């Protein structure tokens, strides 16, 4: 099953909030002057910023798949092919690639694997991500 692609415009405040949430002071993520003079040529997002793109909608859709009380993240595999830059329009597609169910001590548990791909406004593949999610 694959969900409709969704596009997100990457704004300065999204990157700043993400970096501050981690407590990552790297000026490449926030300081225009520093980042502009660097090899990166401007503000870029931390590689793990991928995790934030479309995640809110993703969680809502996973919760709606079954009447889970909650979900827990079991693991993440991220592959990055190029930087995400300020102003990029990133299109993400999530699909469910594996589903196993078993009875656990809290009732029925589902072990799900989701694969997502991220393309920029030039249709270049920026990143891929696999998430292992436990619903119960």
């Amino acid at each position, binding site marked *: 099953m694959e969900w409709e692609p969704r596009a997100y415009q990457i704004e300065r405040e999204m990157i700043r909030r993400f970096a*501050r949430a981690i407590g990552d002071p790297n000026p490449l993520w926030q300081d225009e002057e520093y980042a502009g003079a660097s090899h990166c040529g401007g503000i870029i997002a931390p590689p793990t910023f991928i995790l934030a793109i479309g995640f809110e909608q993703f969680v809502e859709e996973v919760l709606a798949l079954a009447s889970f009380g909650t979900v827990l993240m079991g693991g993440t595999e991220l592959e990055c092919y190029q930087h995400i830059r300020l102003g990029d329009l990133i299109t993400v597609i999530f699909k469910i690639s594996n589903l196993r169910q078993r009875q656990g001590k809290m009732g029925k548990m589902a072990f799900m694997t989701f694969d997502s791909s991220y393309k920029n406004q030039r249709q270049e593949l920026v990143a891929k991500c696999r998430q292992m999610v436990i619903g119960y």
Partner: protein
Amino acid sequence: MPPDGYRLLGRRLFEMTEQLYYEDVTTGSEIAPLVKQPTTRQLVMWAGAVGDYLPIHYDKDFAQSRGLPGVIVHGQLIGAFLGQLMTDWIGELGSLRKLSCSYKGMNYPGEALTCKGKVTKKYVENERHYVECSLWAENSKGEKTASGMAIVILPSRS
């Protein structure tokens, strides 16, 4: 901390860091650890930054109703800490190609977490200089609550 102080601190920290090159790295060497102490405030900041509003990360009663001892740290925040461990290490000329992490145990706000890594392999392929590392996060009891690996590309002096 006010935004300007935050910015200056970041800049000062990074100007002191020297760029890492492929030739500087040896298999088995350790990466300078990154210590984090996620607070409930940080969990709220993370929830807002990524849009993860699952109540197991802010509502103690709800967390207990799902069989957890209390509010837990978002697994992906630990993944992002490991990402910072790598981007701090590789500098602006390095690039993170792959980061994987499995969340083996629960982390609780208020507990110190130390992110660590070790170089497992280095190789050149298509003129690119790759370094593989194993990564993990340890709680204050020394338990590995998350572990994974990373592949980075480093600049070469040659």
